[in-house]
């Protein structure tokens, strides 16, 4: 009954998945929208009439959006163009989201799969390390990093990634724990395959569903953590900005200048929605049992 996925079948599994992903309309639309968004964020600033950090001292501060004027999204409370800032913020947010999630994914999956697969003492030691790191005061850890090495975008990736992989590791480990009891793992072991190969070829592919779903939850989480850092003054250094930071600033003045909240929030939400649909599509497409 249960199929033994061999390396050759692994490749066809991905081709299969791609075919099925394209059939998923929501995922397809999400991919197109996300692609357009990324393109806009990368290319847009060159076409924006204003620079993201220019303060127009003679202009109207906190001006409402207008299509006839040059401030399409209005201006913030310092008279800076919100269109330019939203795009600039998108660059940072997407970068942080992708890189930090990738960091946490790499560490988390490896750690969790190894711990769950070997079990026993190794598992115990590895998970105690996770427990200890969990109980570390995140803020303190980040303050320390920022203080010792100064404000740097790479540090934000490292700090967030280094914290987020813990959840991933726990979930992966839990799944691995039950996976290794499965018949196909036992079969692989009796066929003399090495532990590393089993983890790579049998455990990890079967984890992908959960991992992908969790990764789609991690990207928004990372973007929000970044905004929390900015909120505490440890994030991106002004005049640069991020969506999280723009939303944060906008929320403070939501009654006076609602557009300062609405535009960045809309971009942020759209991006998160896209990740969601893509993630779900991927999950369905990758599920080896769903044929």
């Amino acid at each position, binding site marked *: 009954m249960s199929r033994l996925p061999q390396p050759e079948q692994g490749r066809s599994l991905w081709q299969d998945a791609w075919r099925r992903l394209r059939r998923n309309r929501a995922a397809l639309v999400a991919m197109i929208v996300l692609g357009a968004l990324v393109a806009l964020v990368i290319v847009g600033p060159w076409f924006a009439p204003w620079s993201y950090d220019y303060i127009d001292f003679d202009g109207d501060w906190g001006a409402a959006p207008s299509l006839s004027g040059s401030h399409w999204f209005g201006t913030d409370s310092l008279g800076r163009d919100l269109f330019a800032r939203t795009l600039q913020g998108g660059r940072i947010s997407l970068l942080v989201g992708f890189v930090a999630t990738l960091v946490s994914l790499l560490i988390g999956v490896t750690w969790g799969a190894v711990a769950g697969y070997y079990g026993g003492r190794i598992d115990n030691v590895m998970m*105690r390390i996770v*427990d*200890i790191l969990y109980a570390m005061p995140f803020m303190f850890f980040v303050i320390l990093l920022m203080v010792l090495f100064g404000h740097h975008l790479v540090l934000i990736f490292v700090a967030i990634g280094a914290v987020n992989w813990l959840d991933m590791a726990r*979930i992966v480990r839990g799944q691995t724990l*039950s996976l290794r*009891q499965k018949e196909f793992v036992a079969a692989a072991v009796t066929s003399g395959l090495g532990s590393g190969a089993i983890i790579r070829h049998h455990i990890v592919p079967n984890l992908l569903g959960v991992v992908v779903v*969790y990764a789609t939850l991690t990207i928004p989480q990372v973007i929000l953590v970044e905004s929390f850092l900015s909120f505490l003054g440890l994030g991106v250094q002004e005049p640069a900005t991020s969506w999280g930071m723009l*939303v944060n600033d906008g929320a403070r003045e939501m009654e006076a200048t609602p557009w300062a909240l609405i535009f960045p929030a809309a971009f942020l939400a759209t991006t*998160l929605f896209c990740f969601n649909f893509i993630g779900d599509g991927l999950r369905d497409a990758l599920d080896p049992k769903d044929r």
Partner: protein
Amino acid sequence: MLRYAFIRLLSAIPALLILITLTFFMMRAAPGGPFDRERDVSPEVRAKLEQAYHLDESLWKQYGRYLTALSQGDLGPSFKYGDRSVNELIAVGFPVSLKIGGLAMLLALLLGGALGIVAALKQNGVIDYGVMTLAMVGISIPNYVFAPLAILLFAVTLGWLPAGGWNDGALSNLVLPVLALAAPQVAYIARLMRGSMIEVLHAPYIRTARAKGLSERVVILRHALRPALLPVLSYLGPASAGIITGSVVIEQIFGIPGIGRYFVTAALNRDYTVVMGVVIFYGVLVILFNFLVDLLYGVLDPRARPQ
């Protein structure tokens, strides 16, 4: 099983010790001290203060002193709140955080779990998309946007609920903070639940159960729910520890006297003993919850029972 539990709890001691040591020395490596202020005190007063808190001793001696006091359950005096001990700050603040966090967690588990299951059963249907969109909204609206919006609507405009304050934990003061705290959790749990439920529903033994003609309700509740809960449980362990120890954003916005604020403010104030206190407290909870989760794992999935 008992032996396992005993070993697990015993192994928590070195883990905590490492945690304490790491935090202690990392914190002391940070620049600035508890008595650095914009308005400087005289060197003599500063020396007296440092002497009173033993900050003039060598770091190792302070570390030893701290461990000795800790072994007697004494977390030391707060540097910032001069007349209070850390034990007292936690004893006063934790019940507040626990009340809000516990209610939020319960709400998240029940609502999120139910939504996740419903969405999974109607995979790719209207309800599924509806629930998932709602979950995504829950995740993508940060607390510091959701909470002020809720206050603006329910407290300022409609006047139904208070805008903040604790008021001895009166029900009306609980509603908004619990909702604000639970909202993202509901969303996370619904997403996780849906994902794992779909996974389980495609498993061969569920197909077998269905083929046997068992009713959908029996299939879901008796066969699918337990394994589907596993990833949710994995998430729940550490998440609960984090949530019942309070959230700095929620506490600040609603003016709630919990202990969540100390994780940030004590670190910023270099209130060493308070940082150590909340870190240890949090550490103990995390270890405890993870232990409970592992025990539950054994109950829910006999194959994953630890040896």
